[in-house]
């Protein structure tokens, strides 16, 4: 109970829970439609989803400032690739929140005669750019970690100079047979080694794994809404729900958050 109180005290936590509920409603609406449920129930779920979406927009009213502050902090990072990716990602998020605020004002009637579709597309475009940059950063970090792990393994088991000799190096491919028959097994073994490396790196770095999964799930939402790669509301709801649950996990266990 006490942990709920502490969790609830963070404004971001509440927004994440409402986001999870919103995408659960999307998923539920899709399954109800497929299952042929009553129109009344579908309408209620649709209205609930719209209400939660609008309330989340209200809750996000101050987030542009937060994103700009994060961008200011990201400029001081030492790694140049990280600096570039994170700063531009935060700036895009700030623009996304600004468009989102305008959309909220339009939906509540404060700004009349607003082209909702145009502003909605704009906001999703900024969101997509921010997600692409986040994914780039994740892949860059993954690349760094894989290189590091490879070097670590190479230093622990140095490769033998004679390919024919029985080597203790588990990374070296079997090379006693003629070269022509070796090509596919060598490739397969190489691929297997890479995948094993990838799995090891991800398993030992849960923050990176979580962030990668979260961004991969999230990217389907703007792709669908902008019409670039339509997947349907069911898949979008599932992706949104998964990414919300993952980010709630990050909030409950702060060590799971990818830093910087």
């Amino acid at each position, binding site marked *: *109970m*006490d942990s*709920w*109180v502490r969790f*609830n*005290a*963070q*404004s*971001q*936590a*509440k927004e994440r829970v*409402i986001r999870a509920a919103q995408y659960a409603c999307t998923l539920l609406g899709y399954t109800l439609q497929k299952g042929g449920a009553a129109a009344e129930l579908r309408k*209620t779920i649709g*209205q*609930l989803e719209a*209400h*939660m979406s*609008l*309330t989340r927009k*209200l*809750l996000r009213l*101050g987030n542009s*400032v*937060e994103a700009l*502050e994060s961008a200011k902090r990201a400029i001081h990072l030492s790694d140049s690739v990280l600096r570039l990716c994170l700063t531009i990602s935060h700036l895009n998020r700030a623009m996304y929140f600004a468009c989102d605020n305008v959309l*909220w004002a339009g939906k*509540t*009637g*404060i700004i*009349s005669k607003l082209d909702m579709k145009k502003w909605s597309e704009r906001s999703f475009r900024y969101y997509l750019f921010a997600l692409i940059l986040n994914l780039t950063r994740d892949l860059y970090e993954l690349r760094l970690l894989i290189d590091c792990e490879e070097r670590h393994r190479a230093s622990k088991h140095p490769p033998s100079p004679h390919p024919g000799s029985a080597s203790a190096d588990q990374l070296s491919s079997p090379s006693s047979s003629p070269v022509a028959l070796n090509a596919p097994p060598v490739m397969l073994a190489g691929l297997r080694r890479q995948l094993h490396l990838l799995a090891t790196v991800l398993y030992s770095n849960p923050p990176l794994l979580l962030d990668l999964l979260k961004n991969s799930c999230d990217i389907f939402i703007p792709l669908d809404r902008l019409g670039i790669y339509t997947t349907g509301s069911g898949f979008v709801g599932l992706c949104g729900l998964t990414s919300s649950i993952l980010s709630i996990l990050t909030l409950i266990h702060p060590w799971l958050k990818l830093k910087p």
Partner: protein
Amino acid sequence: MDAVVQFTSQSQGRDRIFRATQYACALSIYLLRNKIGRKELVVKLKSLEAAMSAGRKLFRLGNTINSIEAAKRTMQLSDRVLRLCLTAANMTRALYFVCDNALWGRNVGLIRDINKERWSLNASRCYFASLVMSLSRDVYVILQLMSQRARDRHFRQKMDAHLNENPEVAGVVIPQLDAFLFLLLEIIKSQPAVALDTLKNICDLFIPLDRLGIYRSNAGVVGFCGLISSLIGIVTLAQPKFKIKP
């Protein structure tokens, strides 16, 4: 900027800002209600107020548990009167949140067959009860502080000096009342947290009083009082030294 970001990252901080905006809108609507040519602005203010109110109801969905946890904590206080007042205030506030959540469910369409008016009145009654309990606690703390102060020798010297200052001034008709007020003002100056909390609860009290029909003021007074109490709430959150303890 950093302080603003830190303030809004607290869920309570944002809720208080929205509450202040909601009551500022209510006050502005009342002040502009008869102005011709401002009809469009009034409509916009009304929709802003409705958006804030609806949003805040959704945010408050988890607060019942918060209040019950607070009640559990206050049950362990040593002072009996404080224990009673605060636990009762927190329990009635928990009941208020339950009614509020039911109203949210009704507004959204999840719960269909509840009487909106009855639950709204119940919510106001619970809120009123919790405010009365909070005010009793404030009065008790002030009386305690006053009796403590009155026994303090240094203060008694100050009071005697004040009372003997201008014996010919016409205003000092009842010396006991003058002494009482002097003591009260001393307490307010030295303990701003208690004073702010009392003022906040008094302002808040006008809202359910109007809703329940006990003391009908108008929408302007309700809006003004709500705005003042929200601003005090923001100040107490931004400056923890102004928050009354426990």
